[in-house]
């Protein structure tokens, strides 16, 4: 395995960074986070049509560009850096990934091209109770009727659930957990937008009442797919967290260079300098964690679950701590609404919970490393 970005990958990073510098500047983020949809459809179209980002890691036969997870991770890192407001994680890391991992070729042919082209916004509805990302947490019921499968139950904290055209749902069938596709406009589906602490990313609660759904693959094969989707998305989210963390370090160091107190730039005081050095050190460790996950994903290794939990635990904690320290370095101004430090701090907090908290992933790792009984959790 080569732990080095190729020239093409470095070029991709530069292109995406350039694009986002223009399309996701701070004033744009602030404007979009105040809207109900939470994204700019024109920019979304440019992302898919001009840069091919929505279909980046989708095989060409389904309308994508056929790149891999390392390229995708680079894009997530840059989006995290720019606090991009767009349903990218939900569409690409969750919905698209679920279809890519399923064993249902017909569904892939039907649904992937729309997602890859950015014409379909997708998401995954899995969580029902806070923090329950495990199989036993799936209680929404799927029943087979004469007219096909229908879903009954409630899903919470569905990323971009208010605007998604295609909702992938994990639900309990008589045979186990199945994966289902639900149309965003399906009858019997009630979507309620929920105001979010991190306003740059939107959530909805979904209620299913006899909602028609398409079974994807086998009615007992859903959890196998979903588990892999959760691991993959955790790594991609970790890359996003790394991007945000590095931007927070840069903001803090940039301020410490110019802010003068006691007749000196505050960055010349070791109290501040060493804090910034520790922030960078933790950010670099987090970057290693995310890249480790990406490389394991790219190699389709058996260590993906391990690397995913490692990346999510490590990057969550790093981003939260670094974003908090960035506020500290800025002092009073960092605590204001006007300053962007809180946007990163809140994004960090929201990312920390999404797809499992650091504590949850440490529990998984402890079980995998044989440090505690795996009872009540999967290992």
């Amino acid at each position: 395995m080569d732990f080095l970005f190729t020239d093409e990958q470095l070029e991709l990073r530069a292109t995406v960074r350039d694009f986002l510098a223009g399309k996701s500047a701070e004033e744009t983020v602030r404007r979009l986070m105040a809207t109900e949809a939470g994204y700019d459809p024109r920019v979304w179209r440019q992302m898919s049509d001009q840069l091919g980002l929505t279909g980046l890691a989708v095989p060409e036969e389904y309308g994508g560009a056929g790149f891999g997870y390392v390229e995708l991770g680079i894009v997530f890192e840059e989006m995290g850096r720019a606090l991009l407001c767009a349903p990218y994680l939900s569409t690409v890391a969750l919905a698209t990934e679920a279809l890519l991992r399923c064993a249902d070729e017909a569904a892939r042919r039907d649904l992937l091209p729309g997602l890859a082209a950015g014409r379909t916004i997708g998401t995954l509805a899995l969580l029902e109770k806070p923090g329950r990302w495990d199989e036993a947490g799936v209680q929404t019921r799927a029943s087979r009727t004469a007219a096909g499968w229908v879903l009954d139950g409630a899903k919470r904290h569905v990323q971009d659930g208010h605007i998604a055209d295609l909702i992938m749902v994990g639900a309990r069938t008589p045979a186990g957990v199945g994966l289902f596709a639900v149309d965003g406009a399906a009858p019997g589906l009630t979507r309620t937008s929920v105001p979010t602490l991190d306003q740059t990313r939107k959530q909805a609660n979904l209620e299913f009442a006899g909602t028609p759904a398409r079974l994807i693959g086998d009615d007992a094969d859903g959890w196998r797919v979903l588990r892999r989707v959760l691991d993959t998305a955790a790594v991609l989210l970790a890359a996003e967290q790394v991007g945000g963390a590095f931007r927070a370090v840069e903001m803090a160091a940039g301020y410490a260079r110019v802010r003068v107190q006691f007749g000196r730039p505050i960055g010349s005081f070791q109290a501040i300098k060493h804090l910034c050095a520790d922030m960078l050190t933790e950010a670099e460790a987090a970057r290693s964690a995310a890249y480790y996950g990406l490389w394991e994903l790219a190699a389709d290794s058996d260590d993906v679950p391990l690397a995913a939990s490692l990346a999510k635990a490590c990057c969550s904690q790093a981003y939260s701590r670094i974003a908090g320290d960035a506020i500290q370095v800025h002092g009073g101004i960092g605590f204001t609404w006007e300053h962007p430090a809180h946007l990163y701090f809140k994004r960090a907090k929201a990312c920390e919970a999404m797809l499992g908290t650091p504590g949850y992933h440490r529990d998984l790792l402890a079980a995998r490393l044989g440090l505690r009984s795996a009872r009540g959790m999967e290992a």
Partner: protein
Amino acid sequence: MDIEIRPEDQPFADEVQRWLDEHLVGEFAEHRGVGGPDDPAAWELRLRWEKKLSAGRWLGLTWPPEYGGRGATLSQAIIFEYLYARAQAPYRLGVQGQDLFGPTLLMFGTPGQKARFLPKILAAEEFWGQGFSEPDAGSDLASVRTRARLDGDDWMIDGQKIWMTFGTSADWLYVLCRTDPRAARHRGLSLLIVPARQPGVEIRPVTNMLGDGGFCEVFFTAARTRADLVVGAPGDGWKVAMAALGVERGTLLIPQQLGFEREAEHVLELARGRAGATGLSHRLVDAWIAVRLMRVTTLRTIGELVAGREPGAQAATSKLYASVQHQRLLELATELLADDMTVTGGGYALKALQRAFLLSRAETIYGGSSQIQRNIIGERVLGLPREPRPGSTGG
């Protein structure tokens, strides 16, 4: 997760592995992983091992053949270090000469100096001691006071050095001296090559907290060395010394960090067998994560070096990260051992984990303390202003 070996390097990697398989046997295999940067354990055995390495021409791989090297590529040297560390071959005694002074001499030495000193380093015949720190010049290295003045055809040296690793075994010292007392701090320093065994040089072991004598203090009283035994020009000592420390902060820690993985696995194994370990499971996970991340970070840096790219900021933060995390791992190990940790063998004979635990306290001090590392990261990577010096007008 492993390093990638390019097809053109595969024959070399095979040769390394074959040699290790054939030679890392018997008493050497029984001492896998023995020793460390400042750990003199199993000295005689390690000396025999080092002679074998020399006979196999595995020392100074990248050095030119005329000095006993192979003129190997950086990529090959890294492959060697990696396979060497993976095989848990004994930690090399001659690091001072092979990895610090030798590379510095290659950069700044005269042809005559190189021809005289480099082959003896690779033959494991002459060992070197670093004379940088002084009792009053630790982190503030530019304030060294050891003086050297020309006296006929010789430099005459007076002063005191400290923290010289393996000083009692050194044949030669490379000593940072003040040769121009009128020049300011960084100017007026020269790096001199000084024979260790002479009446004017007294080397005394300093007993460390393990009760070992890994490092030494050195007293120079009218010690002498030839006028031409200066590395670089007189007055260039600071630049030369910084280059040597740059080597130290670069790739030198790679084998050591890879060695931490085995330690972490050992600690996890301890934890699996202990009922009281459940409350420590998240800390154990964190320790395991940290060690794995050291490996990934190392592989990132190796990848960049081999590709001829400038290493990223992770190369600057990795020493700080690794040394702090290694201490945490060993703190955890000792907590797991609980009361077993509180007793030693007769004659203060320490268990391996006790040794590692105590030795780890030095890791955040040597090679630039954690506080100096943070200054370096803050100033050189993040561009933060230096601290104004008392009395100076500039920033």
